[in-house]
């Protein structure tokens, strides 16, 4: 905030000596850029918000209205599209499937990567640097599709929650470990030493002393993994064959391919059902979401 004041003061100090007329133009020119800045920001914000709002509007329109009344608000709240989308895209089941997979993924990643992150933060061991390097180099690498698919088939994990959870969680492991590691490094070692002097084993010290104060790191990892798992399309596309196992993104894509040409209002209703829960969660917890979803990039 101080920075801003500094920048703002600079023209003023110079113009103080000038006559009132030029003072007025200065005021205007100060006002105009501010207006201009807002105009630009509003333009780019509208580009984001309008299509999303419009998607919700269109879901209440009749199929004919989607085409005839493109820009406007729906003339009536037509809920047929929701009934139709809910039933035909089997969205109730899909939402539950997505919830199971996302919660399972979050739980697995938080447990495994917090334990591992603690070891990387607090212990010295021989292959520490090597293992970290392997993570860094492979985490962004595209996983070969067919080998991945063959692996899941051989393990009998296609068409199952467990397969989706293991597959999604494995991808999230390295970044989550880095987040936990950075957080644990910021916790003073004295805490752990004190617990150990009191007779706690390393594991008990970790569970009783370190984890209870690691809420922020847990939240960061949990949000990152939850959003990733909830929105994952590729793994579902690869592994899920039976309609009743589809997650939300897969159910939406199949519905779009089947009805996208005929019943757009139902497609928009399905999209709204698929998007609104996450968007509400985002708006409620926006600070945490923004912090969590950018955590990987800001760690530096």
């Amino acid at each position: 905030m101080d920075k801003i004041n500094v920048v703002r003061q600079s023209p003023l100090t110079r113009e103080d000596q000038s006559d009132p007329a030029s003072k007025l133009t200065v005021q205007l020119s100060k006002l105009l850029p501010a207006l201009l800045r807002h105009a630009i920001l509003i333009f780019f914000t509208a580009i984001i918000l309008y299509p999303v709002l419009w998607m919700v509007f269109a879901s209440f329109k009749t199929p004919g209205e989607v085409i005839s009344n493109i820009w406007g608000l729906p003339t009536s709240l037509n809920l047929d599209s929701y009934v139709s989308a809910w039933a035909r895209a089997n969205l109730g089941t899909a939402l539950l499937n997505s919830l199971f997979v996302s919660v399972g993924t979050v739980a697995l990643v938080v447990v495994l990567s917090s334990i591992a992150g603690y070891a990387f933060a607090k212990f010295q061991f021989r292959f520490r640097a090597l293992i970290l390097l392997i993570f860094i180099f492979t985490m962004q690498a595209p996983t070969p599709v067919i080998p991945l698919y063959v692996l899941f088939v051989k393990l009998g994990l296609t068409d199952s929650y467990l397969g989706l959870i293991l597959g999604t969680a494995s991808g999230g492991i390295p970044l989550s470990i880095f987040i936990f590691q950075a957080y644990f490094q910021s916790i003073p070692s004295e805490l752990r030493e004190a617990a150990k002097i009191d007779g706690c084993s390393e594991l008990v010290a970790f569970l009783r002393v370190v984890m209870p104060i690691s809420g922020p790191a847990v939240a960061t990892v949990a949000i990152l993994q939850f959003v990733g798992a909830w929105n994952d399309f590729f793994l579902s596309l690869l592994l899920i064959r039976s309609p009743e196992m589809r997650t939300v993104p897969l159910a939406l894509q199949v519905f779009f391919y089947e009805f996208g040409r005929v019943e757009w209002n139902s497609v928009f209703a399905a999209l709204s059902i698929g998007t609104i829960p996450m968007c509400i969660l985002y708006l409620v917890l926006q600070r945490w979401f923004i912090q969590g979803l950018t955590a990987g990039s800001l760690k530096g």
Partner: protein
Amino acid sequence: MASITTSVQRDSPRGSWGFRLGKLSPYLWILPALVLYSVFKLGPLIGGLVLSVLRWDGIEDPVFVGLQNFERIFSDDIVGLALTHNVLYALGTVTGKIVLALFLALLLNQGMRGRAFYRTSLFMPVVMSFVVISILWSWLYNPDFGLINSLFKSLGLDFLALNWLGDTDIALGALIIVDIWKWYGFHMVIFLAGLQTIPVELYEAARIDGASNRQQLRYITLPLLKPVMVVNVTLSLAGAFNVFDIPFIMTQGGPANATMVMAVHIYLRGFKFYRFGYSAALNYVLLVIVTLVSALQLRLMSSNDGD
């Protein structure tokens, strides 16, 4: 292994057993995560090498064909096309995201009213799935009833009312716009965080020395933003080479392969044409490129630390 160690150590003093376990213990902590990651991430990366020397449709017995699959990559016209599209996609998305995000971040960093509103709104597409975004944009791009063409027509700009996804010349560009739309708020937030780390004193000192706003931007802001710039560029670069969801859902690589990118090509070779071995081999082309990007990132990051 473990059982042997315990039986041997049984009657030796407790201290030495504890010592042994102590040495092993860090590995025990990382083992579960490492196993999961090795099986599902490293496994396919390494196992793919085996698959890539086979000819296999997933049903009949695989046949060993040596390096044939890799040789075939060079005669596959679509590979060249797809790689070109990946490069164009990377150029378009990286430039678009960085320029737009930096511009908006600089605007927002001036302590505007409504800052929180702008930030929250611009970041929102990040939590939306690619599937929703792709389907939504398929409709926005609809040549007859889409929002975009109806906007241009109502403004009298009929010549801009194009067949966005159906025209081979512009379809890739249309997908690039969708990708930028999803991510510019994300990159803006990262730039904003970077801007906040620049000490105010630097600007004060520069002002005393008579530096203009533009000079402050050129000599203070941009150089000090380099670390977040590296992050933003490499993140979007890796994303551009891995891109799958948007072209797969919106165009399936069409029309006439105009939006075919590597990841879609690899998927279709595998699951539409059942060339399992060849698809696995193709993966390594992409892998080499993305690994180079990661290496570049690591290099640039560490050169930052040196400064």
